[in-house]
């Protein structure tokens, strides 16, 4: 970090302390969960189970590296195309792309099969969808589209002034990308790459459904098996620690890379069109992306129509919908609060070490295996003397908020950094306090991102339920749980409809919330 930067950052000790408290609390929670499992493991007989750890690490890493690299390339290409092109329905398509990452893995996998599978729309092409290729392709749908959504926000934020200068210099499309776009994207890439790597590395339902057998696996699968089948808790903890250790390297690397300055202005309508060749390429990228990303999601919607009548008359559906909505809203607000505190603390701290300490726990949660979280939470709740059934809603809200925290951080941290760097002098000169800094400078600039964070976290908790597997809660059902129960009772049409309705909710949240908050931010400015 250049020394001169320190002088421009306003001192905000309260923010740093607040962020530190939350970061330490998350770290303490993770440690407590593991401690709960280890305590239970201590009472067990040593077991005979064993895994081929070397192969597991190799195949998991290979798959995660492929997924990450491809997702970033595809995400950049798509963000580039979407940034330049304007057409009716653009917002809807952006919402659709963004929603992919929060759609339950099973739903995306089934959507992929509806399109590319043997009986799918393009089944006649006979493209193999099972095996390593299928797993990476499914991850690409999630993560490539998500990367595009995040990177697009950076490109859309390039100030008009820079664009005008570039245009007056008559930069060719490649130079324009290299000189104007790349610097705007660069700061976001490490955090984004870390998230995608962690998601792919810990992927579970997709790997098992599309992996095609034991040749393609993840460590997460082995942990699940150690807990559920062998009930070998110490082996599970050992595997979990291996997973966390590998993920930690990634997390620390990405946390240590200081995000570079990001601009915060929003660009209007693009008046600078690239040359004809580049525009053709942009349309081509968009068309391919639609074919690859949007069709599986459209297939999910199409598959769901048939069962609509059956599902809408079920009381269980409406009860689950209500539960899902309040869980989603509660965990979205919690995730936003945590992300705001940590992101502003990170932006206010100037040492590399404190940035790692503040940022790492937020990401660490992604590295902890879901089955270990579930088990640890269950043991912890019991150790606290609570009834699992009573604690379930709170556990789900906290778990989902923490699950979406890395995404919230990836969205909010860069603009906070940018404000500290670009508006720091102004804030110091005006002598603004922390509250006014937030209200008058930061809020108007991040309002849209806040909407995006709320949408992300809301949809994440709509899609996830892994943590309460053991809690025993038939009265506490959310939409994904209802979906799984329907599938488990041969009711595949009901399941398809629930999946489609969840997707509709997700897309709606993604289109509406960022717009709403952008408007709120403007009204306050």
């Amino acid at each position, binding site marked *: 970090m250049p020394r001169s930067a320190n002088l421009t950052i306003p001192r905000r000790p309260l923010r740093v302390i607040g962020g530190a408290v939350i970061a330490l609390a998350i770290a303490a929670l993770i440690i407590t969960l593991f401690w709960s499992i280890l305590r*239970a493991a201590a009472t067990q007989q040593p077991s*005979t*189970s*064993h895994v081929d750890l070397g192969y597991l690490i190799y195949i998991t890493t290979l798959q995660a590296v492929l997924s990450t690299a491809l997702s970033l390339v595809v995400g950049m290409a798509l963000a580039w195309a979407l940034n330049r092109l304007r057409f009716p329905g653009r917002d809807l398509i952006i919402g659709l792309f963004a929603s992919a990452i929060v759609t339950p893995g*099973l739903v995306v996998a*089934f959507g992929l*099969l*509806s399109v590319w*599978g*043997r*009986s799918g729309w393009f089944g006649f092409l006979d493209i193999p969808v*099972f095996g390593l290729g299928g797993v990476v392709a499914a991850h690409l749908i999630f993560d490539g589209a998500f990367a595009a959504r995040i990177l697009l926000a950076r490109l859309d934020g390039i100030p008009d002034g820079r664009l005008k200068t570039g245009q007056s210099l008559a930069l060719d499309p490649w130079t324009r990308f290299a000189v104007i776009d790349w610097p705007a994207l660069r700061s976001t890439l490490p955090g984004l790459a870390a998230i995608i790597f962690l998601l792919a590395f810990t992927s*579970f*339902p997709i790997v*098992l*459904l*599309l*992996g*095609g*057998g*034991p*040749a393609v696996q993840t460590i997460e699968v082995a942990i*699940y*098996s150690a*807990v*559920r*089948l*062998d*009930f070998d808790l110490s082996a599970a903890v050992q595997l979990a620690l291996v997973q966390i250790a590998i993920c930690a390297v990634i997390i620390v690397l990405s946390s240590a890379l200081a995000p570079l300055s990001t601009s915060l202005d929003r660009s209007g309508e693009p008046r600078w069109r690239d040359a004809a060749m580049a525009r053709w390429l942009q349309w081509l990228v968009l068309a391919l992306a639609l074919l690859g990303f949007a069709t599986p999601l459209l297939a999910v919607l199409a598959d769901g129509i048939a069962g609509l009548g059956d599902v809408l008359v079920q009381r*269980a559906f409406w009860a689950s919908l209500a539960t899902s909505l309040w869980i989603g809203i509660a965990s979205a607000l919690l995730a936003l609060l945590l992300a705001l505190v940590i992101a502003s603390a990170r932006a206010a701290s100037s040492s590399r070490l404190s940035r790692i300490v503040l940022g790492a726990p937020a990401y660490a949660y992604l590295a902890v295996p879901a089955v270990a979280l579930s*088990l640890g939470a*269950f*043991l912890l709740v*019991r150790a606290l003397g609570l009834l699992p*059934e009573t604690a379930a809603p709170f556990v789900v809200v906290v778990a989902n908020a923490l699950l979406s925290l890395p995404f919230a951080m990836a969205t909010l941290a860069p603009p906070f950094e940018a404000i500290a760097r670009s508006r720091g002098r102004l804030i110091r000169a005006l002598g603004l306090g922390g509250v006014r800094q937030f209200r008058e400078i930061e809020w108007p600039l991040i309002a849209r991102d806040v909407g995006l964070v709320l949408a992300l976290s809301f949809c994440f908790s709509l899609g996830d339920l892994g943590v309460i*597997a*053991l*809690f*025993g*809660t*038939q009265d506490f059902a959310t939409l994904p*749980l209802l979906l*799984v*129960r329907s*599938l*488990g*009772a*041969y*009711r*595949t049409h009901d*399941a398809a409809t629930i999946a489609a309705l969840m997707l509709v909710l997700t897309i709606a949240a993604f289109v509406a919330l960022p717009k709403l908050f952008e408007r709120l931010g403007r009204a306050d400015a």
Partner: protein
Amino acid sequence: MVRSTLLALAVALGMGLTSPPAPAFAADALTIYTYDAFAADYGPGPGLKFGFEKICDCTLQFVATDSSIGALRRVQLEGASTKADIVLGLDTSLSGEARATGLFAPHGLTFDTLSLPSAWTDPDFTPVDFGYFAFVYDKTKTPNPPTSFDALIKAPANFKVVIEDPRSDTPGLGLLLWIKAAYGDKAPEIWAGLKPHILTMARSWSDGYGLFLKGDADMALSYTTSPTYHAIAEKNPNYGFADFSEGFYPQIETAGILKSSPNQALAQKFLGWLATPDAQAVIPETNWMYPVSGTVPDGFPPAPAKVLILDEAAITANKSAWIDEALAALR
């Protein structure tokens, strides 16, 4: 069945003499941990609750975990402080492991009039329902399904099946035991032969069967009674199960009473009643398995001619090794 009920009562009275005084039946509550499809609105749970509460002067509460293994793990974690009186939904391939936990008490009941694949002598677990693992296919797409594992291995390379992971799913484990029971030491060769036909190994039965219904595979590992569901509930007669000449491996779902339960007598009464035709009438068209007593509804296939059995001690001792062996052959 009257006899077993009487016996249950006799045992209950006997228990009353030797153990601390148990609370009376009245207003007692019985808590049963089970898998979620069993407790669901369209599962057998509500019907059984209704039926038993009419005769027991008690309340029955099902607590649903995500799977039967999940229910067992939960009581293992909770130990003596568990609220559960009964764990329901384990199967015979998990009996040895469940017994070894030392958490279950003998049920003290006899079941000698049941229609089961083999006589029931288990002192700790009682039968709930049963089925046979089988590969299910779509008759309109596969007019000539394979008739044995050998025929499946020799089928064209593009003939694909979905199986479930033996580490995470009871049908997946069932297939492993089925092949072991049929082929013994030659099982790895069968797995290696099946490898090109295995489209994928799903985490759960529902994922795998969903893939098959979507048309991505020609067959899926399920039960002989799965086509019955489609025929009765969906009025779709187009599904069948492949009749394998090696014979079929059964899955018998079981229930067991926890030692820590203060409601031993009531729990025994419930498990005795659960095996009666009265209770069993609820099972077939909610859980799509065979009842252990009473009449089998029309449309359920007759029992297979040849039923394979493995010794419980052998399963418990070798399960991990057999899983490793199969996974090695597939990789």
